[in-house]
C-alpha cells in the first residue's frame, strides 16, 4: 500500500499544532478542567447541548474547551460525535407537568397554583460588572424553601379548563413521531419535525426572528404564559420488560407563549400557543422558539403568510448553525477554477464593451464632422 503525500499535509499538521498551542494559552496558568467549565460556564454548556442535540454536560464541556470557547464550533463537535452513537430507541414523552421546578414564572396571572418562583435568574440583577468575581470570593449558601405542597399546574392546563385556549391534542397513537436526524426534511413539515428543527436551531437566528414578530412582522400578540425550568424524568419502554422505566433525568426549559386568535367559522375565538422546549437552562432560546413556532403555525391557523418568521422553508432551512457555518465558511476554500471562468468572461465582455464604445465614439465623431461640414 502506498499513500500520496504532498506539501499540503505538512502545512495542515503545523496549523493544527499551532492551534493546540493557542488553545492551551499561557502554560504557566493552570488548564481549565471540564468540571470548571460544566460548573461555572453552565449556560454555555447548556446551549451547546441544546443546539448539539446531545444531553451530556461533560462532553459539552470538553467540546467548549476544544473549540476555545467558540460555541458554534463546540455544537459542531458534539453533533459529529452524536451521529456516530448507536441508537437504542426513543424515550416516552417527558412530562413537564411533573417537572421538579427550579424556576417558574407566568406573566399572565398574578399568582397561580405552585406559585411564581424566580430561581437562578439574571432578571432584576443590575448589570454592573462585579469586581469581586475577578477573584474567588466565598459565595453565600442559597436559600432553600420547602417543596411546594400543591402541584404546579401548567398555565395551558389552567386555561384549557375554560376552553379559552386551544387544545394540544397528541398526534394519533399509531403515527410515528418525525426524526429529523434520520430522514431528509420534506416541506411542508409537520409540527413535530418543525419543533425538532427549532429546538436545535441557532439561538441568535431564532431570537432575531422572534423579535421581528414583536415588531410587527407577523404580530401574534404574545404573552409569556409560562416559563419553567427544572428536571424531568426520562422514561423508556424496554421491550424485555414491556413497561417504562426511568433511565435518567434531564434539565429542561419550557416556554408556552399564549397568543391571540380571532377564531374562524369552525372555531370560536380562543387563545393559541407557541411552544418552546430546550435542554438545560436556556430561557431566551425557549422564548424565541415559542414565538417562531407560533409564527410558523400561520398556515395551520389560516393566517396570511406575510413575514419571514412565518415562512417555514425560509426559517427551517436557515436555522441550523452547523449547516450555516459550514456553507458560509466554505467560501474560504479555493474557488480559483470557477473564478478563472468568470475572469475570462468579464475580460471578454469588457473588451466587447470597449470595442462598442469606440465604435460609438467614432460614429459621434463622424456625425460631428458631417455637421461641421454642413
Amino acid at each position, binding site marked *: 500500500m502506498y499513500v500520496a503525500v504532498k506539501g499540503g499535509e505538512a502545512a495542515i499538521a503545523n496549523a493544527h499544532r499551532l492551534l493546540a498551542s493557542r488553545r492551551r494559552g499561557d502554560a504557566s496558568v493552570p488548564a481549565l478542567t471540564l468540571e470548571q467549565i460544566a460548573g461555572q460556564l453552565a449556560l454555555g454548556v447548556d446551549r451547546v447541548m441544546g443546539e448539539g442535540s446531545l444531553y451530556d454536560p461533560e462532553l459539552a464541556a470538553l467540546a467548549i474547551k476544544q473549540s476555545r470557547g467558540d460555541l458554534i464550533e463546540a455544537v*459542531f463537535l458534539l453533533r459529529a460525535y452524536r451521529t456516530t452513537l448507536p441508537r437504542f430507541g426513543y424515550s416516552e414523552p417527558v412530562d413537564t407537568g411533573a417537572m421538579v421546578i427550579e424556576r417558574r414564572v407566568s406573566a399572565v396571572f398574578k399568582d397561580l397554583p405552585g406559585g411564581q418562583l424566580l430561581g437562578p435568574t439574571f432578571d432584576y440583577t443590575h448589570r454592573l460588572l462585579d469586581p469581586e468575581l475577578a477573584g474567588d470570593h466565598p459565595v453565600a449558601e442559597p436559600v432553600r424553601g420547602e417543596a411546594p405542597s400543591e402541584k404546579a399546574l401548567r398555565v395551558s392546563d389552567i386555561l384549557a379548563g375554560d376552553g379559552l385556549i386551544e387544545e394540544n391534542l397528541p398526534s394519533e397513537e399509531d403515527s410515528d413521531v418525525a426524526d429529523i436526524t434520520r430522514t*431528509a426534511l420534506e416541506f411542508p413539515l409537520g409540527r413535530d419535525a418543525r419543533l425538532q428543527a427549532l429546538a436545535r436551531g441557532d439561538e441568535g437566528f431564532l431570537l432575531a426572528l422572534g423579535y421581528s414578530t414583536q415588531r410587527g412582522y407577523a404580530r401574534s400578540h404574545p404573552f409569556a404564559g409560562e416559563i419553567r425550568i427544572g428536571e424531568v424524568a426520562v422514561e423508556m419502554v424496554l421491550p424485555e420488560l414491556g413497561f417504562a422505566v426511568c433511565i435518567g433525568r434531564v434539565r429542561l426549559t419550557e416556554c408556552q407563549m399564549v397568543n391571540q386568535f380571532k377564531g374562524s367559522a369552525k372555531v370560536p375565538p380562543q387563545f393559541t400557543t407557541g411552544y418552546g422546549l430546550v435542554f438545560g437552562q436556556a430561557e431566551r432560546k425557549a422564548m424565541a422558539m415559542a414565538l417562531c413556532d407560533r409564527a410558523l403555525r400561520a398556515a395551520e391557523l389560516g393566517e396570511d403568510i406575510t413575514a419571514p418568521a412565518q415562512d417555514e422553508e425560509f426559517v427551517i432551512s436557515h436555522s441550523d448553525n452547523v449547516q450555516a457555518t459550514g456553507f458560509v465558511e466554505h467560501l474560504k476554500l479555493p474557488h480559483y477554477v*470557477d473564478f478563472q471562468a468568470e475572469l475570462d468572461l468579464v475580460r471578454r465582455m469588457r473588451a466587447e464593451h470597449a470595442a462598442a464604445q469606440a465604435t460609438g465614439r467614432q460614429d459621434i465623431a463622424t456625425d460631428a464632422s458631417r455637421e461641421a461640414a454642413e
Partner: protein
Amino acid sequence: MSAQIATDAAPAIASYNFAYLDEQTKRMIRRAILKAIAIPGYQVPFASREMPMPYGWGTGGVQVTAAIIGPEDVLKVIDQGADDTTNAVSIRAFFAKVANVATTTRTMEATIIQTRHRIPETKLSAGQVLVYQVPIPEPLRFLEPRETETRKMHALEEYGLMHVKLYEDIARHGEISTTYAYPVMVEGRYVMDPSPTPKFDNPKMHRSEALQLFGAGREKRIYAVPPFTEVVSLDFEDHPFEIQTFDRPCALCAAENVYLDEVVLDDSGGRMFVCSDTDHCEDRRAQGHRGEMAGHPLETAK
C-alpha cells in the same frame, strides 16, 4: 461515555467503523445511490449525517465515498483539479485513516475519484467512479428558492424558467453568462446541476464510461449519471453551447485544449497559465513535454 473522557483518552479511531459511517447509515446511502442510478439526474433525498468536517466542505461526497469504498479501492481526491489543495489533502488523509485504503494522485490508477470543481482531463474508464462534492444540487434554486416549487417543476418537466433565464442572459450580454455549474439535461428528462465545475468540463460528462455520483451533504441529496448516458448542456439553436478556450498552451507542459489556472507572478502584470489538472500536467512533463516556462520555480512548488 464519562469513563472515556475521565481517563483522558480521546476515543481511538479504531472505535469508529470501517470508513467512519455506521452500517445502517451506509445502507441508507447505498439504497439512495441505487435509486439515483435508476433515475439518472433525479435528486434522491437522503438522511445526510453530520460528518467530522464542516457542511460545504465535501460532506456529501465524503458520505458517498464512505458508502461505496472497500479495502481494494484506490482513492484519488482532487479540489480545483489538484491533489495537493488543502481540502483534498484533508479528505484523502481522512479515508487513508478510517478506511485504510491506498491513495493515489494518478487518475489512471484510481478506482474512486472524489472531486470538487473539476473533471480530470484524462478520459475516465469503465472501472472508475467519479464522486462529485455538490454545494447546491438544485439547478433551479437560483431561479426559485423554494424546494416545494422546484420539486413540482421537476415532476412536471417544467423547465421553461431555466430557458427564460438563459435567454435573458443572451439579451443582456449577447451570450449565456453562466461559466460554471452550467445546467445540463440528462437523458432528455431531468435538468441537473453538474456541481460548480467550469462549463469546460460539461462535455466530459456526456456518455462517460465511468459512473458519476453526486453527493450534497448539507442539502441532503444524492444523484447520479450512469455510464453512456446522454448529458446535454442547455442551449439555443442560434446560441449553441460553447466551452471556454485558452489562447495559449500550459506554460509547464505545453498541453492544449485543457483547463488552465492563471497564476499571478508579480505585481506588474506578470502571469502564467498552467494546467488545473496537476496529475495530467505532471504526466505530460514526465513524458518529456515542455512548455515555455518549464523549469519555472512554480514547477517544483507544485
